[in-house]
């Protein structure tokens, strides 16, 4: 399992060097720290799918002594591991550039990443290979562009939800969101495993 996770580093060793300037760019552009954490988290796991969506890769992985359950588990656990690493590197970069950030920025960035991963990982196994990583990346950009205004719209026009959230204490809210995130991530993991077990190569 560890080997499957480590594989992404071997595959992307040159690209990793490009990721750092990308993070720098966001920092220099003075973007919100939560967004920087999110972008940094996304880079490795989603770039990995550019390799994994090829049929040959799946033939290779499935011919090696791994089960399909392990292959998917390595994706979901790997995403968390690389998210942790990316957040660590981003923290260092932010400190170096003297940009202030809070723990909640990290939590929001990481949380959003997990949500995004939960909804997109299964897609990589449902749709035909070749286009899906492009579709997901474009989807991400659109979401990042439109998402905030949708939230604002909901906040302004549906006071019930707004009031409910405001009425919760901060710890309850954070715990609630964290639990919900984990549940969604786990469900996504389960669904992807089922899809992958039925796949033919």
């Amino acid at each position, binding site marked *: 399992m560890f080997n499957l996770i480590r594989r992404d580093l071997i*595959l992307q060793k040159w690209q990793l060097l490009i990721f750092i300037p990308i993070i720098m760019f966001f920092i220099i552009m003075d973007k919100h720290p939560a967004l920087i954490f999110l972008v940094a988290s996304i880079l490795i796991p989603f770039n990995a799918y550019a390799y994994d969506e090829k049929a040959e*890769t799946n*033939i290779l992985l499935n011919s090696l*002594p*791994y089960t399909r359950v392990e292959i998917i588990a390595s994706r979901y656990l790997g995403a968390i591991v690389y998210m942790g690493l990316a957040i660590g590197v981003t923290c260092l970069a932010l400190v170096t550039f003297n940009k202030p950030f809070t723990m909640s920025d990290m939590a929001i960035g990481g949380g959003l990443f997990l949500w995004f991963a939960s909804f997109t990982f299964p897609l990589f196994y449902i749709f035909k290979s070749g286009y899906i990583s492009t579709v997901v990346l474009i989807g991400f950009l659109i979401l990042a562009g439109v998402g905030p205004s949708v939230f604002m719209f909901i906040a302004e026009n549906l006071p019930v939800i707004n009031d409910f959230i405001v009425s919760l204490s901060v710890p309850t809210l954070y715990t609630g969101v964290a639990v919900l995130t984990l549940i969604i991530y786990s469900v996504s993991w389960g669904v992807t495993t089922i899809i992958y077990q039925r796949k033919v*190569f």
Partner: protein
Amino acid sequence: MEHVVELKNVTKKFKGFSLKPINLQVRRGFVTGFIGANGAGKSTTIKMMMNLLKPDAGKVKLFGLDYQTHERAIKERIGFVYDGNVFYEGLNLKDIKRIVGPAYKRWDDKVFYRYVEQFELPLNKAIKTFSKGMQMKASLAIALSHHAELIIMDEPTAGLDPIFRRELLDLLQEIMLDGSRTIFFSTHITTDLDRIADYIAFINNGEMMFNQSIHDIAENYQLVKGGVDLLDRDTEKAFVHIHRTSTGFQALTDNIEAVKKTFGDSVVMERASLEDMMYYMKGGKQHVQFN
């Protein structure tokens, strides 16, 4: 355990193609060649052996174990070589080894580097820059470096030049020497098999025609040539397939005794090559056709 691979009544249906209930046993310690025309079902069968495809019905067992409960244990013992390159093409051989090697408990770096040297493979060049022959050698080096007991190869000689094909076959012969290995490989180049195969499994149109030793095949099948006037409804029954021309007929028989009894010296009988068999059985066994 005599058989390393056992397929029992295995079926698989696709759009426009189906594998009829297949029974196939691969004997331990021998080279089994798996022949059939393009699209006959060779790759499908191999994919089911590798658990890349699940059969609709029937049982697939390797080393007496099934994939439901022993997937990892089975694959630990298999070395695989596929027709195309399945390794990340942008990576060099060293990095591929870094990814594939740790997957196996019995991976042996020494063996790997020995083959790399023997095959003269560059370690720091991307796989995509390799020629077809070099890619094949790289796959083989990886397949042989974890002390696999069974080597499964899907069309390893396809697209290789004759000299390289011969080299590969010599090498396969060499790795069989220690007696602990089994090789199962598919091909549609039947001349590859005359040289190294002990057993031949023949699949045609999704149906297993036979799985016999080379020796038995030579004894059981012969090519018969004679005048068309010798053929009638009764005498034709002795043949698998008959090919008629203006000067006479050529036919394949799996019933040599009957042919000898019926025709005696009026026909010429000779050894049927694997290619003859593939050609004559194309229409299905016991299915006399007239061309």
